[in-house]
């Protein structure tokens, strides 16, 4: 039964709650269209539409504007007084990973975040509750050349493969300055120090790695040439999982995201990259980027920074909250990132700080956490703004989003609700009931719980244990 334009709170879908609770992937297929009506729609690329609507169909944005027709069978969400923005993209995250650093070696380009995604990390959900729909999950900063990063969508409940965003230009982490220097195990008796220990050494390590990668690249090119020439005896060179991604960098097939602080190290890395004829994609943190904004722009790099963190270490002592604004004003594509499972929950507020410190406009501030990180991850054709044809990654706020009073009501990823305030409240009850049921099943229920057993067993959401496990299995397929 599909009455036209049901004006129902989508949050009351018990099935939906069950799916979220059970940790199974939300299905995207054949959902009824959703229309968010009468909201202030901040599209980022097409201005802000008062009393606007967004139509979501098949996980995509199907229409945006002040005059959107509600198709039959659509679920309508009343957005009166509410704001809609594109899903927030965190360009620097360490969520949802079972490993962050391979710190034993100075070049750890062989390790991949995608191999260790932890889909059970509750912070995937918590940050979705802060409006985040995409995170760039990065290797840590223990090495001059770090590991391969991954881009995930916050499809809470999906498995590792389901979280990973497909067909994204791969990225890799580099790190300059204090972190790779001090991750060298200095001063621990019995453990040899790891080279490098200075900014000179950091650049040397990167240069050496690329020289090695050039040789590797040449070996493969030679092999491929011989094969092309019909040499059947040609033996492929040994694969080197460390050097392969470096070759990809030189061939423009992998984007470098370089952790950095000081202006000098930023400059040095750009010049090194130019030596090997590639470009640094994005400088991460880049707290002194404001000092070399022109050079960053001219090199062709972008910048992903913090809003107002400073003074936690020497290389952050000259950080200023105007950094994002200065770089933006000088033509660098800038994003504000979290690098933290907590900070990521209020990136909207962090973006707002650039309006206070540095005087960015509302649109510019909003871009810092939506379109710009999308550009930095080369996914701006799919996400980052509210435009027809893009993924329906959207956030509904109860009030003005660039505010310390902002509160997320609903977050959509690919048109699916991954967070909703009312649904969350139901999930809490269900979780309590499930816990109680499981404790009973395990014979560990407290006396009070045991006394209530009859009552709870009869209620719908309290259904747990083995029967629920079997049901979940049915539900997920």
């Amino acid at each position: 039964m599909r009455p036209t334009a049901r004006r129902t709170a989508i949050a009351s879908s018990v099935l939906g709650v069950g799916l979220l609770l059970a940790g199974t992937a939300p299905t995207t297929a054949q959902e009824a269209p959703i229309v968010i009506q009468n909201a202030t729609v901040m599209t980022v690329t097409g201005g802000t539409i008062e009393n606007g609507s967004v139509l979501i169909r098949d996980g995509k944005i199907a229409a945006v504007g002040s005059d959107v027709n509600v198709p039959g069978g659509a679920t309508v969400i009343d957005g009166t007084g509410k704001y809609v923005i594109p899903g927030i993209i965190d360009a620097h995250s360490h969520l949802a990973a079972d490993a962050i650093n391979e710190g034993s070696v100075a070049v750890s380009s062989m390790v991949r975040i995608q191999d260790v995604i932890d889909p059970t990390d509750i912070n995937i959900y918590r940050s979705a509750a802060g409006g985040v729909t995409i995170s760039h999950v990065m290797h840590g900063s223990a090495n001059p050349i770090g590991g391969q990063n991954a881009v995930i969508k916050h499809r809470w409940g999906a498995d590792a493969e389901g979280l990973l965003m497909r067909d994204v230009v791969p990225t890799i982490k580099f790190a300059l300055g204090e972190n790779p220097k001090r991750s060298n195990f200095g001063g621990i008796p019995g453990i040899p120090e790891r080279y490098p220990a200075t900014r000179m050494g950091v650049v040397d390590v990167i240069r050496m790695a690329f020289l090695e990668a050039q040789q590797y690249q040449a070996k493969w090119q030679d092999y491929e040439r011989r094969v092309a020439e019909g040499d059947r005896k040609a033996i492929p060179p040994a694969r080197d999982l460390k050097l392969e991604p470096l070759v990809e960098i030189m061939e423009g097939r992998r984007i470098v995201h370089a952790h950095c602080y000081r202006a000098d190290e930023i400059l040095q890395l750009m010049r090194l990259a130019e030596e090997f004829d590639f470009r640094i994609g994005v400088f991460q943190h880049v707290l002194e980027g404001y000092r070399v904004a022109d050079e960053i722009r001219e090199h062709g790099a972008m910048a992903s920074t913090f809003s107002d963190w400073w003074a936690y270490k020497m290389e952050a002592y000259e950080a200023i909250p105007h950094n994002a604004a200065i770089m933006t004003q000088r033509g660098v594509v800038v994003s504000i990132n979290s690098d933290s499972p907590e900070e990521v929950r209020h990136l909207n507020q962090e973006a707002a700080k650039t309006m206070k410190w540095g005087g960015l406009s509302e649109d510019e501030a909003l871009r810092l956490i939506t379109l710009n990180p999308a550009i930095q991850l080369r996914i701006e054709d799919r996400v980052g703004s509210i435009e027809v044809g893009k993924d329906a990654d959207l956030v509904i706020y109860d009030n003005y989003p660039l505010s310390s009073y902002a509160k997320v009501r609903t977050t959509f990823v690919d048109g699916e609700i991954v967070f909703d305030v009312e649904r969350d409240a139901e999930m809490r009850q269900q979780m309590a009931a499930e816990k109680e049921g499981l404790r009973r099943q395990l014979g560990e229920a407290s006396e009070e719980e045991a006394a209530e057993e009859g009552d709870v067993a009869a209620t719908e959401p309290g259904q747990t244990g083995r029967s629920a496990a079997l049901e979940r299995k049915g539900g997920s397929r």
Partner: protein
Amino acid sequence: MARNRLSPAKKSASRARCTRRTVAVLAVLSAVASLPESIVAQRPSDTPNPPAFYAIQNVRIVPVSGSVIEDGTVVIAKGLIESVGVGVPIPPEAWVIDGSGLTVYPGLFDGMSSVGVRAPDEEDGGGPGGAGGFSFPGQGQDIAEGPEDRPATTPWTNAADLLDPESDAIERWRKGGFTSAVIVPDGGIVTGQAAIVNLAGDEREMVVKTPAALRITMDSPGGFRSFPGSLFGVISYVKQLYADAEHQARYAAAYEANPSGRERPRYDRALEPIQRSIQEGWPTILPGVEKREIRRAVKLGADVGARTVVAGAHDAYAIADELAASGVSVLVSLDWPERGRDVDPESQEALESLRRRANAPTTPARLHEAGVTWAFYSAGLASPREVIRKVNTAIENGLPREAALRAMTLGPAEIFGVADRMGSIAPGKIANLVVTDGDLLDEDTKVKMVFVDGQKFEELEAERPSEPPTVDVSGRWLLTIPTPQRTQEVTADLEMAEDGTLSGTLTSDRGESTITEGWVSGDSFRFVASTSMGGRTFEVTYMGTIEREELRGTVSFGGRFSTDFTGERPGGGV
């Protein structure tokens, strides 16, 4: 069959143990065994060679590979099962055993174990980070600077070469009905090759097949300074290792065909077994307990082209169909997750943990329903009794009894490619059998005898004085055991039957254990329980006397250490 006078003394020694005549005989022969073989081989054995032919008749037969025979005969000849069925002729050589009231099963087969496996020798410990322990991570260790240093990689290590046939554990597990196990080396990333062994005899007799599998863990070798220091480091390393092995094979062949003008391949003993494992399709054991770990193992196995066997699998209940589709085999750890023993009573257990505890024991049922090839493994459980108890948890959670039995007999045989020679009672198969006085899966059932390679091991009742008890020890006792580290307190909940048979549980901060082999006679008592210390499990034997509501005696920890203990009733008795 003529007695083989030339049988090696060591062999005689192990056989002598079958009869369990006297400890003295064993001691003497063990001493002899250490002499050069050439001397003792000349000398007639002091005991007759054990029988090579048996017929168990009037016995209930559960062959696992066929339907149950309520009253039949199993004939064993020279280590193999000769015939099985109703009214099969009993050969004249056979020693006939009346199996009335008894049931015969295939011997239990532990899908993965380290029973009887000693730690690899230091010099055989492999690359940096290999087995051998460490203090502060990386301290004093060799440092691996990359995959080329082959960290913690010992694929040449074979569990069969690490066997200690004299290990108490072998006897303990055999007594409980286990006749075979897949044994694996521990420690490192690529720990080495597994072997299928029978649980009796010397090394040459025990090994049924090796290499039976390659075992890989995802443990980083410890310490961030040595590569790989992380989970994704390990994964990338394993991939590099397999790529290197493949390249090495290809390059070495090309080099051999035409060495002139070519750089010679480097010597790298880690690569050859890896390449063989792929070419010969060895089962490759990869760990995976939680859902994402299982998927990771499946993916890694597929990426390197291995025939994957996932070990652990507690969350497999949630992805049973997916596993069935992937074609991997699964070894289910019987060490079901439990709530921490010593946790803050005010702390709330997380939903995830509750779910895992509630659902892990449904995994076997779900794998069975989904048609996955799977088996159980003992996963460090202390005793066969514990194993049976945990198997029953799976049965309570929906696993059919036959499937449970299969998962400890034919199941592992199938996974490791020896179902043609073991795992069920069928003519031609190795005569590994367990004879019980009831359903093997009932916790009260006693193992009456075990056949390994056709050799009979009979469990004689532990010596127990015939005098009836003069005191009743039933009820709760608080035992105080001064150990060198600290004074251990143990609560004993004892229950004494009229004939003096003692049962019950012991509880301490190390957990709870069940009392076995307990009795009271006159004012004396004895009972056994197991405890784990420093990651190892010991049988602990308590014996002493009861006087005026006080227990006094000695407690022995696996024969390694003993001390006096006392016990009293809390608050003056029950």
